[in-house]
């Protein structure tokens, strides 16, 4: 089975469409959406519509911290993110808001756990940024493999035979084997707001038969996405960072 994994779309219509179009040519059996569909970008309504449509056709989706903030509070968010959430809330109708609010924190299938951020305590939305946080996550969860987003920078962590954790930064287009007898934690890059220095949209494909994951980078119309952010009166920084991927 081939799973397309998409995280941190952040209301970036152009990036999301480009990834879906790319994935359409990749024999995908199932879409797994890893949260943060809204916030930062200028097309929250469009993006949530497409997510709802995908879910109606069998996709699975978990909730991200920005999605949770729509119906909850924005305490703990940085001022720019909080501003964007305030604006986003006004763009979403009742159906959108209820859909987002009803998403689960995590999905567990066949020993694989899908979650937006740290798996140990999903509502806390902790970041996995180094081998220590990855080790904690892997030690505490029961899953053989954990897939998450939230950091906007792709990384793969593995527990070795002697319980040490190694970190690998995947290379675009090079499949990385995830042998079954080890445990893995995979952090997806971001579809709509990459921060690893590469502005192209990022998503992953997991092949559960070959036990391999591959990360793709997809070029999209950054200028259009950025223009809309400026036109919406959202903070400039949210537009400019898209060009440099930081």
């Amino acid at each position, binding site marked *: 089975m081939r799973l397309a994994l998409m995280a941190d779309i952040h209301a970036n219509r152009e990036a999301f469409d480009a990834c879906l179009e790319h994935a359409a040519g990749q024999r995908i059996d199932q879409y797994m959406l890893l949260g943060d569909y809204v916030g930062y970008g200028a097309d929250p309504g469009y993006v949530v519509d497409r997510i709802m449509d995908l879910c109606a056709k069998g996709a699975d989706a978990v909730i991200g911290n920005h999605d949770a903030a729509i119906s909850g509070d924005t305490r703990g968010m940085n001022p720019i993110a909080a501003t964007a959430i305030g604006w986003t809330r006004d763009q979403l109708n009742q159906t959108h808001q209820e859909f987002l609010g009803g998403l689960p924190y995590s999905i567990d299938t066949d020993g694989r756990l899908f979650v937006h951020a740290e798996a140990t305590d999903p509502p806390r939305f902790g970041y996995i940024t180094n081998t220590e946080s990855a080790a904690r996550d892997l030690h505490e969860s029961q899953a053989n493999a954990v897939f998450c987003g939230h950091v906007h920078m792709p990384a*793969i962590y*593995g527990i*070795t*035979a*002697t319980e*040490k*954790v*190694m970190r*690998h930064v995947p*290379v675009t287009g*090079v499949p*990385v*084997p995830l*042998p*079954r*007898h*080890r445990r893995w934690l995979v952090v997806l890059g971001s579809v709509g707001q990459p921060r690893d220095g590469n502005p192209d949209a990022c998503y992953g494909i997991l092949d559960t038969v070959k036990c391999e994951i591959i990360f793709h980078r997809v070029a999209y119309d950054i200028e259009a996405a950025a223009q809309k952010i400026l036109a919406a009166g959202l903070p400039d920084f949210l537009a400019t960072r898209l060009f440099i991927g930081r």
Partner: protein
Amino acid sequence: MKAQGLEQGAVIDGYTIGQRLHQGGMATIWSVTHPDISSPILMKVPNLFEGEDPAAIVSFEMEQMILPRLVGPHVPHFHAAGDFQPQAYIVMERVEGQSLLGMINDLPLPVDQVAALGADIATALDDLHGQHVVHLDVKPSNLMRRPDGRIVLVDFGLSRHDQLPDLMAEEFRLPYGTAPYMAPEQVLGIRNEPRADLFALGVLMYFFATGTRPFGDPQSLNGLKRRIWRDPVPPRTLRPDIPPWFQELVLRCLEVDPDARHPTAAQLAFDLRHPEGVRLTQRATKKKADGFFTALRRRFAGERVRQVRRGAQSNYISSAPIILLALDLSGASDDLTDGLRQTVARLLRAAPASRLACLNVLKLARLAIDRSVDDLGQNKHAQRLGALKRWAAPLNLSEDRLTYHILEAVDPAAAILDYVARNRVDHVVIGARADSTLRTLLGSVSAQVAAHAPCTVTIVRNRAFGQDEGAASAAVS
């Protein structure tokens, strides 16, 4: 997770176990057959006994990751891999012939033979490095020779693929490798340095030419580290008939700082195949290892270790191309030779570690015996060599970046292509004859080279000025 249970006649995933070919420290190798595979194949199975070194498992996983991604004649062709449950294995091509291990009974060997072997090994390494892999365990038992002479690298259990997770790195504090052959940076735990394989090859060539291992076979980490500050006895001191160029090349491989070695395996292979072009430094004439106190100072200054770490950080593969200039001396215009020189100069400037081979093919009407002397008794070779040198002089290249070659052949394009393949040339620069009548008569060498060379080819052509394009061919003659 057991290897002991295997025996002749057992069937795993359709593979029937045959004879046991090898019982190693880390793995056992069985000859196997499969109804759908007619070529010889073997199965490698890790030794997973209780209390076994965990390195056996991890290195087997690394090989399972890396081998399926490798292609070409210098690695065994991959067939299949089995997960750890129920039985971990790799099925691969069974390479005909022997490993080089048997050769160590006949040491020392003639230098020419060692150099030719070293060049073939370096060519195989260059191919591997081009596929993003550093072998990290180059030694006679991991090198096999195909019947056609080409070298095959086996055992990727300690290797590093620069685009895949490195399971070995995090796992073990101790450096993994084979003590006599391990490069200083590998001793320090650095695993992403392709030139570590050149060091190991230097050890092998030293050993094969002298019968003595340059750093012995140390059994402790301290013993291993000695090579960081203690240089080996120069090979010519052990065997005075070893020529200076060979000592130069071997000692360069054994440089502690990776930056002081050849930048790529292809460049080392090139030098081993063209001894006359090797620039000799004080390495060539060195008579004994550095004095005890020099070594002692190095040991305690710590500078060496910093040097190794620094050197090993630089990235090398794409920045040290071999550039081949094919110069037709027969009727080329000055404009064309100038144009070629400008193109070459630009390429050399762009890659400071690059080197240039200037080549001219003496075209023969047919193969004849006494062909190096023309009617006037002048040596054509010397003449052409002089012309090549004059052409290259304005480039002001240091000797170690420049070589000259005169080939003789009936078919110049074929000779150039053969040279490109054998020396793993990265970029060919070649001139196109302006005269299209001649071109049609003789066939275009540049077009043939461009069509068939396995690398980048730049064709330099003079623009014909002052005439419209349709009339160009008529006007030139």
